[in-house]
């Protein structure tokens, strides 16, 4: 005990870096470290499942099943997966939607944040912002019920209003929205934007608020229009934060919002062609109609691909602007 305080006093208040200090700090974060090991690093070893032909013998433990009962399959699982009919579909769905989401997810919130800043009435601004934040706090389960209230075939608001307004004749059968692929193609994009609007805006609004007013004043003196001010001051100042958001989005290009594609659509079978993303497939192949081999292969491909994209995206952004970038 006295050894420790003696060491501190000797350095006269400067950071001591004594080994006891280090040990204590280590102990402080030890529980978290163990958590990471169990829930983040152990599963990384679990990728070995993808290289085996997983066979279960009931009554035996998982480890036994995996290492004794299952034969080494090398790349067979991957080959089988890639050759299957649904691989192209799930890849297409995941990537195409994400590209759309990434682009819209930057353009729309940035535009709205800039416009939002110009509102005269700050009171109106605050009320609108609070209301626009609501979807972010809702779970997809709740949102799926909201959507159902509008799109249910028999009782949904949309069908009934279309009927009463005369848009649709009363004799025509009620439109079954949950079977309509063409509708959901676009509606999924809308839902994704609807949920993320409030959150996305806030990030950019905070950055805009931090921009030095004097620059705008100087530009004004030089006779710049609002549009010019936006183009030459606001947007360049937002570049770092846009870059970071862009990298994070692109890094996650192989991941999808499971709740959006599975829950909001009520897992409608007719929509599978457009709702089956990699995450949805991995889930279904693990827990609904088990195909552990393909599921684990897809899962591993997704992790590896995601890792590559995020590192690459970060490198590219750093080339453009050395200050930006996550690491």
């Amino acid at each position, binding site marked *: 005990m006295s050894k420790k305080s003696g060491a501190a006093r000797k350095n006269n208040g400067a950071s001591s870096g004594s080994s006891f200090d280090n040990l204590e700090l280590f102990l402080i974060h030890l529980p978290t470290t163990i958590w990471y090991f169990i829930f983040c690093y152990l599963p990384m070893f679990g990728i070995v499942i993808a290289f085996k032909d997983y066979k279960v013998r009931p009554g035996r433990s998982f480890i036994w099943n995996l290492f004794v009962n299952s034969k080494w399959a090398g790349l067979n699982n991957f080959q089988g997966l890639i050759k299957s009919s649904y691989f192209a579909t799930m890849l297409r769905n995941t990537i195409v939607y994400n590209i759309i989401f990434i682009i819209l997810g930057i353009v729309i919130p940035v535009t709205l944040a800039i416009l939002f800043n110009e509102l*005269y009435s700050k009171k109106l601004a605050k009320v609108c912002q609070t209301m626009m934040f609501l979807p972010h706090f809702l779970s997809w389960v*709740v949102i799926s019920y909201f959507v159902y209230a509008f799109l249910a075939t028999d009782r949904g608001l949309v069908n009934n209003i279309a009927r009463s307004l005369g848009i649709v004749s009363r004799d025509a059968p009620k439109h079954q929205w949950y079977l309509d692929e063409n509708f959901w193609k676009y509606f999924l994009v809308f839902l994704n934007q609807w949920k993320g609007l409030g959150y996305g805006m806030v990030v950019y609004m905070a950055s805009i608020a931090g921009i030095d007013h004097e620059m705008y004043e100087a530009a004004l003196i030089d006779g710049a229009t609002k549009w010019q001010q936006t183009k030459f001051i606001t947007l360049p100042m937002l570049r770092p934060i846009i870059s970071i958001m862009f990298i994070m989005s692109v890094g996650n290009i192989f991941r999808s919002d499971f709740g959006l594609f599975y829950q909001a659509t009520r897992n409608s079978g007719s929509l599978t062609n457009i709702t089956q993303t990699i995450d949805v497939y*991995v889930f279904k192949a693990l827990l609904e109609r088990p195909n552990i081999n393909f599921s684990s292969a897809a899962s591993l491909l997704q*992790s590896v691909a995601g890792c590559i994209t995020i590192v690459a995206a970060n490198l590219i952004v750093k080339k453009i602007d050395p200050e930006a970038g996550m690491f």
Partner: protein
Amino acid sequence: MAKNQPETIKYMRVKPATNVFISLLFILLALMCFLPALLVLIVSFSSEQSVLTNGYSFFPDEFSLASYAYLAKQTGYIGRAFLNSIGITIVGTFFGLFTTSTMGYALSRPNYRLRGFFTWYIFIPMLFSGGLVASYMINAQILGLKDTYWALILPICCSSFYCIVMRTFFQTSVPDAIIESAKIDGARQIRIFAQIVLPISLPAIATIGLFLTFAYWNDWMMAKYYLSSNVQDKFPLQYVLISLEDNISFLTRNKDKMGAEAAANLPSETIRMAMVMVSVLPIACSYPFFQKYFVSGLTIGAVKG
């Protein structure tokens, strides 16, 4: 309002016509975000009869509190689900705050020798994950978490993002002088952390705590992965809503084969919407007050730590 503003700021505003346009745009967007929730709220207060005849509507024929009365009497599985959600949220938030703040604090100490190593240690899982299958096998089979409450709490209690937010906060908002003077007095790190740093870090803790609370309250995926129908008494509220939906779809598809009794046991339309409201209202009513914290938390996190 215009009269009080200094001249320069007035010149910097958009034209009044543009302001009208922008205001209308945001009013429209705000309504779009809010109206669906309002619809479900109104339906939950509608009488069952008016929903069965006219469908979902903003203007039902008659209002009724029957669905909420029904819920209030449910000490059965709905009440149980509500209690489950509350318990899981509280315990989960506690675990989450404990893990993120301890890691955040340790990593914020500049003289900690293992700082670089462990920063990477928590950063790598953000880049690469073992995937759902591996996690599932470990959580369900090896750790034996299947069908337990812990499956809903532990796997998601910690997040690298929040650790970094905490670390940034400790680095920037806790004055070094306080810590140094405590060290001179011979205080150990754990004492510094618990008795000095934590009490003055309440804003960060409140922010992360809020994020965690809302995340746990809304979570249904863990239940979907790890809870089977054998343990219906452990279902959290959101998951009960899902299984209701599944049952309804199932019953609708098999209407002829199931007896009238099975259909009658299903909560009616209005009761379902009342349940949705019950799961949403705590959040919907509280988040406006905490908006300030969310915004500051997001901005701290978005800046590179």
